[in-house]
């Protein structure tokens, strides 16, 4: 167990090597041959070299067993073709089942041109026909003829690799099992002595690895291919049953056979040693970037958007992809619900032209129904496509569909593997998840919420006879993020986020928000009008007051004038009286004081 773990952790640097590109396989091959444990013959098959620690044992026979249609012949053929093309190791394919032309036809669809390789003296396909009805046996014999044929074929091109497919057919053609077994033992010994890396295929037997017990003779490396159907979904798996002298992966690994040939995917959890990035990338929605600390997501993290149906998860994903493509980054979009054409059309309605990116080969869509393959197969396909396309951004829409392809525990494991894988590659993953209405909203069907880094949550708010979309950031590791609920609008110009109305009426969205806003606007206008009215009133009052003040002043002035006039009259009268008195006094000759005189003078001046 501990050994297995150590092995897994060793893979991480190797994985980088394969993920680079087919052209660098040589480099990884070199690396493995540098391994002092056992010389290896790299298979050139993606993933298989990783789990075998560099390939099949060099100079020794390897047994590949599996049931009919498991891919034995193909694996063997690819071992030869890759050897011939990439490692300059010519090979001999001894076919006991199919003729050379049939074989050439079968593998042409994978891009292997056997005839051309034969012309270049890199490959010999030798068809061995055994017709039981033609053959009678009398007495002793051996299989020297086979040895000579094989030997001649090997020597003709200096072959380093040999495939015997399927040597068990000898058991059908020849009766004497004793001789046959002895000869097979001798054959494998002879192959070892020749120093060729041999691959022997064999049919899976009842309760045993092979029908005729070939594993007895080939004991260096045994690989079992399995083609299993669970719930009507088939998955191909590969397991290294034994591999002498090498630490190897012991798990069952899913593998793919497609137009690119055979690929095995070491899809164990890769652990948590990935390099983290400080770089931030835009979510494609400026307002959302603002909510995420102003800069968007961290590169290489996992973003989950969950929400009920029709809340705009796919639109948000498309925005993210669009933004990535705008930056010139490659994006991969795995859609389990919509076809690429449908997605492109639908996104056009919110002003996103994704087609331009697919044309520039910045964006690739991969649409398939989730139940179409098994989970492992999905994972394998995603691995494969990611390794080929080398995207910076991967969208999986939606992850919940994958449950349909397996049970939820398997889906959970698979997603963790997938997230680890993407993180390891520094790829930003954007996952969407559909939450059904009846369930607790803040959970995902596959329980991966704890391993995502940023979780956006979208929900419907039902109010005032309508449903409106709202978005909030449930969590976002390592950044200050907004705790606000935002109204999520799908406009012809894309996604827009608006503040929701939060007030005494509660949280309002959509028309309610608009009507509330209108109400508030009206109220404000009224307040303003009233203020203006009051102001006018005051002004009028002030004017009235001023008029009154003026009137009073006028009145007062009149009074003052009157008073002055009365005074003058009084003075005049007094003067007159005084004069009269003085005159009287003079006439009487009375002695009068000066003071009186003076005052009389003053009044007179006036």
């Amino acid at each position, binding site marked *: 167990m501990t050994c297995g773990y150590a092995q897994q952790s060793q893979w991480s640097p190797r994985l980088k090597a394969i993920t680079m590109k087919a052209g660098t396989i040589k480099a990884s091959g070199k690396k493995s041959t540098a391994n002092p444990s056992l010389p290896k013959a790299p298979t050139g098959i993606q993933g298989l070299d990783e789990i075998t620690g560099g390939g099949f044992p060099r100079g020794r026979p390897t047994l590949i067993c599996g049931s009919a249609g498991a891919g034995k012949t193909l694996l063997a053929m690819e071992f030869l073709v890759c050897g011939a093309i990439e490692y300059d190791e010519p090979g001999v394919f001894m076919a006991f089942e199919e003729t050379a032309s049939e074989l050439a036809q079968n593998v042409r669809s994978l891009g292997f041109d056997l005839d051309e390789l034969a012309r270049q003296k890199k490959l010999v396909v030798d068809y061995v026909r055994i017709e039981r009805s*033609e*053959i*009678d046996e*009398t*007495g002793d*014999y051996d*299989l020297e*003829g086979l040895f000579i044929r094989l030997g001649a074929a090997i020597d003709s091109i200096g072959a380093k690799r040999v495939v015997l497919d399927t040597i068990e057919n000898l058991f059908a053609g*020849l009766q004497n099992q004793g001789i046959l077994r002895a000869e097979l033992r001798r054959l494998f010994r002879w192959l070892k002595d020749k120093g060729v890396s041999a691959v022997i295929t064999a049919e899976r037997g009842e309760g045993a690895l092979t029908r005729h017990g070939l594993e007895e003779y080939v004991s260096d490396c045994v690989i079992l291919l399995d083609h299993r159907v669970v719930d009507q979904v088939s998955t191909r798996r590969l397991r290294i049953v034994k591999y002498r002298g090498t630490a190897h992966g012991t798990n069952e690994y899913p593998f793919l056979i497609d137009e690119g040939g055979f690929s095995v995917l070491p899809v164990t959890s890769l652990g948590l040693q990935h390099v983290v990035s400080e770089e931030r990338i835009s979510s494609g929605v400026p307002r959302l970037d603002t909510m995420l600390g102003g800069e968007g997501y961290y590169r290489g993290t996992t973003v989950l958007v969950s929400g009920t149906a029709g809340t705009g998860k796919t639109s948000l994903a498309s925005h993210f992809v669009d933004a990535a493509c705008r930056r010139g980054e490659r994006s991969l979009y795995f859609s389990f619900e919509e076809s690429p054409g449908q997605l492109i059309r639908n996104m056009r309605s919110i002003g996103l032209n994704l087609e331009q990116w697919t044309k520039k080969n910045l964006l690739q869509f991969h649409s398939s129904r989730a139940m179409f393959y098994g989970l492992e197969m999905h994972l394998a396909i995603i691995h494969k496509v990611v390794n080929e396309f080398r995207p910076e951004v991967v969208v999986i829409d939606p992850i919940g569909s994958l449950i349909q392809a397996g049970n939820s525990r398997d889906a959970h494991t698979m997603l963790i593997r997938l997230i680890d894988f993407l993180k390891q590659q520094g790829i930003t993953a954007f996952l969407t998840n559909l939450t059904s209405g009846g369930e607790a909203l803040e959970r995902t069907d596959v329980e991966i919420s704890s391993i995502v880094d940023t979780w956006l949550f979208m929900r419907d708010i039902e109010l005032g006879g309508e449903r409106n979309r709202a978005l909030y950031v449930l969590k976002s590791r390592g950044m200050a993020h907004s705790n606000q609920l935002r109204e999520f609008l799908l406009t012809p110009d894309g996604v827009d986020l608006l503040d929701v109305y939060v007030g005494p009426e509660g949280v309002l969205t959509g028309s309610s928000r608009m009507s509330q806003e209108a109400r508030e606007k009206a109220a404000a206008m009224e307040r303003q009008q009233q203020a203006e009215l009051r102001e006018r009133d005051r002004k009028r009052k002030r004017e009235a007051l001023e008029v009154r003040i003026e009137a009073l002043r006028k009145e007062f002035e009149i009074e003052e004038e009157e008073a002055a006039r009365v005074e003058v009259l009084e003075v005049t009268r007094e003067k007159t009286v005084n004069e009269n008195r003085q005159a009287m006094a003079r006439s009487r000759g009375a002695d009068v004081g000066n003071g009186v005189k003076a005052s009389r003078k003053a009044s007179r001046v006036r």
Partner: protein
Amino acid sequence: MKKLAKAKQQPRSLQQIAHEDGPKSGEVWELRLYIAGQTPRSVAAFANLKKICEEHLQGRYNIEVVDLVKHPQLAAGDQILAIPTLVRKLPQPLRKIVGDLRDTERALVGLQLRPASSE
């Protein structure tokens, strides 16, 4: 011709046809014996073959011995795996007998010089 008319009345096995028509038709038998070097088994096979032919096909046979050690490329032509292998090229159909022909009875059956069921 008489025999053919008779045959129509009574169905015969292929072996019987070969047995009755083959050797008696005066046709020359082309036999090829594949060996790999002068091993005791090869020598024994050749000796056994010679004996059978002398007994049953006197003067009507050719034996070609192919040594695959010397001509390995010839192994593919007749699909030779086991050594020694005797190939009856003519008369048709092609027959192969592997082994050192030690068991004369079986060899005769194999060469269709004798019906499978002993009469």
